[in-house]
């Protein structure tokens, strides 16, 4: 049996929307040219994900409305039926449309819609007034967009938000892996020499973060369809992962460059404990995102993590006061405090986010 994945759903929607337009066009006796404009709109707007489609549809409607207004004025000013007037009209459209769409790429199709009104007003045998041509073009676009929204929100719906959740889980797993690598390197827990894959982590995490930003922009158009609580959990989790990512990137780079991590051998037990608590908290957060965990479990895990940090800091202070730190080279101390900074930042960001969330 065919798998009902995002691609199949997209293919299915594309098929349905075209057939639906043919039916409606036939029912309301749409003229051939109006049918063409609506067809252009449906295939340009329909996209893989619901958020993408909503975004493209809204942008296209705005471009159509503004573009047809610009086209109407240009057609009215350069009304004579010759190539010179057509050229002057197109120059004006190019300048106005280019100026408006430069800062707002969402309005990219202004020029196209304006040019359509201008050129159609000059078609031989055209008897329609310019305002009617402009109005019909907007109406054809609106019909196409309406059909697309209808199909996109009812047939095999594919939310951008769901993809954003998956990407965030991937970022979380990547951060989790990097955190593990950092610990295993600094405390020499691994059996052999560990390869520092700082560069790969850096590239991957930035790529994911960038993808997330784009998908989030799409998902913001779906806000009304997503449960408010889920959106809130998502935002907290994203903030947490972003903060962790920036710190981990720096730490990972530091591990590669500060070669002396000898001090950490004394902290094996404390680090192991911290890592276990951190991982359990991250797993719980991920589970909460898909509704498979409770807030209470998250709060308890947060407390355990804070306790692990307290133990770590107490032990560090004890060693320092006993002059143990003084016996180590400066580089070892520098690297130690930097990693300790990461641990504190991690715990603080988790606690702050949860407080905000629970409030």
């Amino acid at each position: 049996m065919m798998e009902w994945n995002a691609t199949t759903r997209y293919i299915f929607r594309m098929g349905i929307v075209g057939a639906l337009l043919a039916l409606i066009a036939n029912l309301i006796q749409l003229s051939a040219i109006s049918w063409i404009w609506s067809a252009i709109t449906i295939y340009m707007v329909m996209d893989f994900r619901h958020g993408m489609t909503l975004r493209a549809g809204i942008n296209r409607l705005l471009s159509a409305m503004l573009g047809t207004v610009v086209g109407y004025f240009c057609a009215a000013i350069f009304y004579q039926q010759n190539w010179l007037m057509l050229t002057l009209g197109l120059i004006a459209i190019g300048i106005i449309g280019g100026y408006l769409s430069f800062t707002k790429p969402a309005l990219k199709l202004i020029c196209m819609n304006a040019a359509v009104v201008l050129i159609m007003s000059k078609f031989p045998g055209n008897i329609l007034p310019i305002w009617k041509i402009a109005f019909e073009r907007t109406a054809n676009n609106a019909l196409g967009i309406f059909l697309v929204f209808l199909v996109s929100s009812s047939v095999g719906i594919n939310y951008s938000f769901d993809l954003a959740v998956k990407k965030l889980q991937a970022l979380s797993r990547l951060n989790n892996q990097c955190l593990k690598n950092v610990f295993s390197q600094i405390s020499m827990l691994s059996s052999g020499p560990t390869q520092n894959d700082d560069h790969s982590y850096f590239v991957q995490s930035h790529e994911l973060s960038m993808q997330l930003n784009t998908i989030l922009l799409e998902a913001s158009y779906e806000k009304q369809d997503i449960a408010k609580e889920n959106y809130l959990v998502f935002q907290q989790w994203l903030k947490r992962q972003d903060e962790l990512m920036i710190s981990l990137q720096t730490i990972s780079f530091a591990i590669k460059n500060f070669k002396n991590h000898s001090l950490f051998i004394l902290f094996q037990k404390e680090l192991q404990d911290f890592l276990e608590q951190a991982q359990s908290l991250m797993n719980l957060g991920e589970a909460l995102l898909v509704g498979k965990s409770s807030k209470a479990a998250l709060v308890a895990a947060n407390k355990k993590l804070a306790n692990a940090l307290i133990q770590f800091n107490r032990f560090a202070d004890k060693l320092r006061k006993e002059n143990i730190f003084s016996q180590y080279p400066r580089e070892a101390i520098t690297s130690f405090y930097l990693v300790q900074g990461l641990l504190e930042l991690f715990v603080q960001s988790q606690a702050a986010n949860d407080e905000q969330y629970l409030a």
Partner: protein
Amino acid sequence: MKLTAQWKYSLRLGVAGAVLPAVAYALNFSLPGFLWMVIAAFMVADSRVGITIRQGFHRIGGTVSGALLGTILASTFDFRSLLLVMLVFAIIGVVSAVIYNYIKTLRLTAMTAAIVYLMIITTQNSPYFPWQIGLNRAWDNTVGICIMVLVTLLIFPSTATEQWEKQVQQLIELFAKALTQMQQKFTHGKEGGATSEEIHKLIQIGCQKLQTLTQDRFWEDKLNAVSSACVAQQLSLLRLGNIISNLLQLKIPAEHNLLWDALRPLLLNVCADFQLLFSGEHLVIVAENLSKLQVSMNQLNTELEVLRAQQIIPAMQILDVQLVYRYLSLLELLFIVMMEISEQ
């Protein structure tokens, strides 16, 4: 008078508006043919050369495949039955979605297929054969796209590379601002002007913009057969951004911190030397500046060793010690990245 990028783009499209009718007139295009030509041209227009060329190629691919699909469907199915027309539209949607899934560049197949199909079935008295209608659409679209690409290349050409460089300059300005902020924090114990949080946010946004532009620039470099070093440069700049963001988030140690009081003048020296590397909008990584910075860093580390030898640190509060060490380690990392950039 210096034209802004916005005006340049706007004038470029104006020029395209003048060239398109001239070419259509010279090639004896009909008005409907001219309409499709103008639509195709304005659809691929972008403020950057590389993007216009890329969109142009994609659109030509979509146009040719769509014209072919539309012609085949119009010649195969009887269009007098509503059910068959619905079936054709469903086929257009499904086939183009499948094609798009495999070849991401052929996004506009469905659009052209629908146009060609509808034009064939609604102009029964046309003197043209269906395949001629399909060919005409592919031809006028291609001419329109080629004109827009040519105009983009010739009139105020603006590349992603230029925008990438401008973005780098903006980031460097922000880095310099962050260092000034830090110097003020070190001297007066408080922030002046924009807050650290504001600069931190601006750096994050700037880094994300740079990432997007790097992808565009990478494509342009590939097109020009130039070996692209922008990815490596971008990574170093992002690292700088991360480290500076981390530095900005650190607090100033409390008063009567022996370690801080002793090291603060040296830290200020290091910051001033870093400032020399971020001059205005450019990175001035010259050997002289780097060696000056190296000397300041060495002085800082030597002083720290002296203080360590005096055994005053174990008696201090751990919070006071760790904050100073974090400043030191992040500044050292900043220096390492600077060296990395100088090697690039």
